[in-house]
């Protein structure tokens, strides 16, 4: 393999490793907000790593550029979906973990009528 294929191979390896860690976090963390926190960060970074590795492997061809254009789309859409799910879960009534320290959102939301 050429040198750029080796570098791309290693970057894709990092991405897959962070994907695996994110899914491990999805299984291990105690409540839904922590799970979203860990899984969204790691899986977004891991997917970006895979796409960037593909770009390094293929260089400036049509295939590589498409992988590069996909990175900002992942970075923009994935956190927005996570915000929507977290807000929906809080309004749905999922409680925080019992060892949580503070919840300002619940205090502020009680004052106003339910959306």
């Amino acid at each position, binding site marked *: 393999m050429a040198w750029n294929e080796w570098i791309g191979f290693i970057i894709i390896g990092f991405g897959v490793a962070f*994907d695996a860690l994110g899914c*491990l976090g999805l299984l291990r963390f105690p409540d839904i907000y922590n799970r979203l926190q860990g899984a969204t960060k790691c899986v977004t970074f891991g997917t970006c790593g895979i796409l960037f590795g593909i770009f390094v492997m293929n260089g400036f061809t049509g295939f590589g550029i*498409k992988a590069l254009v996909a990175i900002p789309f992942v970075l923009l859409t994935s956190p927005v979906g996570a915000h929507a*799910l977290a807000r929906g879960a809080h309004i749905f009534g999922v409680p925080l973990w019992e060892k949580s320290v503070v919840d300002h959102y619940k205090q502020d939301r009680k004052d106003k009528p339910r959306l």
Partner: protein
Amino acid sequence: MNIYFIILVACCFACLIRAWIGKSIPDRMVAIDIMGTLAVGMTALLAVITERNFLIDVALAWIFLSFIGTLALAKYLVHKTLDE
């Protein structure tokens, strides 16, 4: 390359386990959302392994489809119905 794909399939199974044990409805939805982002990476990797370049277009479209699906699920959580 094949070993990477096997690891990603194992990650999808972890998401499925979370969707199965769940405990609450939003927990299952989170698992589905994460699986959507994982599927983008899997499709892109499949394009490299099988050398079929059109699969990266599928990945690009999948980003937006999973985004819209997640927003619809979140809307269900807030309003408890899919109308509107």
